[in-house]
């Protein structure tokens, strides 16, 4: 199984609270067999210490160093909230949940990072109409 499958990418027209976004990210990761449901607490704990808002509308919720046992396998969840999510005072559009075990997720994560650091690419991601398009954009860089 790869770290990011099409089923782990969603687009929502409305907005959500940070709590809802964390729960949705966890649900996706649980469904993918990457984490246990307890991971949402780990994410919450992490947000309490330091926000995972990265800039350019991207937040990457994940657990802390001490909660790694909740991770079963590496996986990502990608949700775009077109209405935005209030992320500790910042406006997040993309919420990418991360469960990292070992290094296998780092490659795609690094591609995502590079993608999101380029504002043209961010605009493309925001303009994508379907989860498939988002997935394609994320995967395309992965192959390049």
């Amino acid at each position, binding site marked *: 199984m790869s770290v990011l499958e099409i089923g782990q990418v969603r687009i929502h027209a409305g907005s959500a609270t940070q709590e809802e976004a964390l729960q949705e990210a966890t649900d996706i990761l649980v469904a993918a067999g990457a984490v246990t449901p307890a991971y949402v607490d780990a994410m919450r704990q*992490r947000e309490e210490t330091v926000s995972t808002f990265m800039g350019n509308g991207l937040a990457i919720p994940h657990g802390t160093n001490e909660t790694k046992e909740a991770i079963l396998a590496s996986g990502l969840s990608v949700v775009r909230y077109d209405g935005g999510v209030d992320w500790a005072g910042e406006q997040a559009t993309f919420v990418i949940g991360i469960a990292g075990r070992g290094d296998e997720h780092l490659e795609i994560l690094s591609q995502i990072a*590079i993608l999101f*650091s380029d504002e043209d690419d961010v605009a493309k991601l925001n303009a994508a109409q379907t989860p498939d398009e988002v997935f394609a954009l994320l995967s395309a860089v992965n192959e390049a």
Partner: protein
Amino acid sequence: MTTTSTTATASGGGARVRVQRFGTFLSGMIMPNIAAFIAWGIITALFIPQGWVGFDGPVEAWQWAGSPILGGGDFDGTTYTGLVGPIINYLLPLLIAFTGGRMVHGHRGGVVGAVAAFGVIIGAEGTVMFLGAMIAGPLTALILKYVEKPWQGKIKPGFEMLVDNFSAGFVAFFASLAAFFWLAPVMKWLTDLLGGAVGWLVETGLIPLASIIVEPAKVLFLNNAINHGVFTPLGTEQSAQTGKSLLFLIEANPGPGLGLLMAITVFGVGAARATAPGAAIIQFLGGIHEVYFPYVLAKPVLILGLIAGGATGVLTNVIFQSGLVAPAAPGSIFAVLFQTAPGSHVGVILSVILAAAVTFVVCMPFLLASRRRDLAAEAAGGDKLAAAIAQTEANKGKKSEHLSNLAARTGAAADGAAPATTAVATAPIQNIVFACDAGMGSSAMGASVLRNKLKKAGIEDVTVTNAAIANLDGTADLVITQQQLTDRAKGMSPNSVHVSVDNFMNAPQYEEVVEMVKSQKEQTE
């Protein structure tokens, strides 16, 4: 950056910031060496005569006649030095002195600091010289720093090594003599003074107050001097008459140390928190109290918790009229129970439990308060190059907090801080580490972005990696963290240049780092 945290620091005034910075310095000197303390603690708990496999150990079946080979002493007609004495007397103080010197003036500062520390170690022979090493190490490095200032950067190429080594060699020579003749007597005098004061408290019956002296003295590694110099003779006398003495428990009660380490385990931060549980096992079960001293040296205010806990323990034994038959050595819970006088078990066990509980409770607010303060200070320090800000603040005092806030705000828009960046990087940057709490997400993303930017700028010989803060090993030239985490990162990697960023995706600081690496490359080519 929040306004609340800014005001919190500003209202605290410059003194608090200075105390805090001093605390960070102490901690930077001690924490990298904790492993050595733990290793020594294990060796000691096993091989000293009263150790678990010592020839005079608490369990008869485990007694090993040859224990002096490792623990030190006579065996089979030969006198062995063992590992215990040399490590505590020489290795541990030297490690601390080296680390302290290195923090002030790089590796050479560490070297001169270690040499100077040897002066005070030998000069005050018979006393474990941690305090002396903590003074001599950084101070000598500071002297070297000022001594060579006049000719720094003016040496003809090819002669730097020669000049550097000789100037450091002479500074180390003079400093070791000064430490031997001047610092050592002061340290010895301090030890005698503490011993005398404790003796007086015992005589006057104000014995629970003895903790006010005993606990700080313990942490300065004067525990054996006090325990064996004062309490053991007095206690043995008492025990011979009445069958028990509470004096044996004043220093050896493992409760306060346990309470302290538990408090750090729950409320502490960074490396201290991560290592405290292991230290607690060695301390409480193994009876080697020394393993908790570094944590207090790194955060001296915690001594209040130990004093409160220690005094509680003593008072409990006064109330229950309980005590030990003979000294509990090592001060492990097993040794304590083994030596407890018949009928004293309730009082002794309570004295350990209450001492631990009181220490835990008293330490808690200090740990929580300073935790918040560290974060607040960091937030007020702005999101520019943390090292540069720290320097400016040190020069300008309290006012600069506002300045740096301003600078941070304008700098985020314009590229105002680039000159400062270049000025800070004195050592070539080859190894950049992005650090975050788990080393799983944010730091990996940041590292990718910067790696990409460096690649685009045509720079290939600089490595960019990511790590959990707890795994920083101090070898990074440049450490990049989110601003709330920079303080913790500094603690783990004190000699690196630290950069704080707000926005991992396109922080203005990235351009500065790229510029810095570029210009450094041009200089060397």
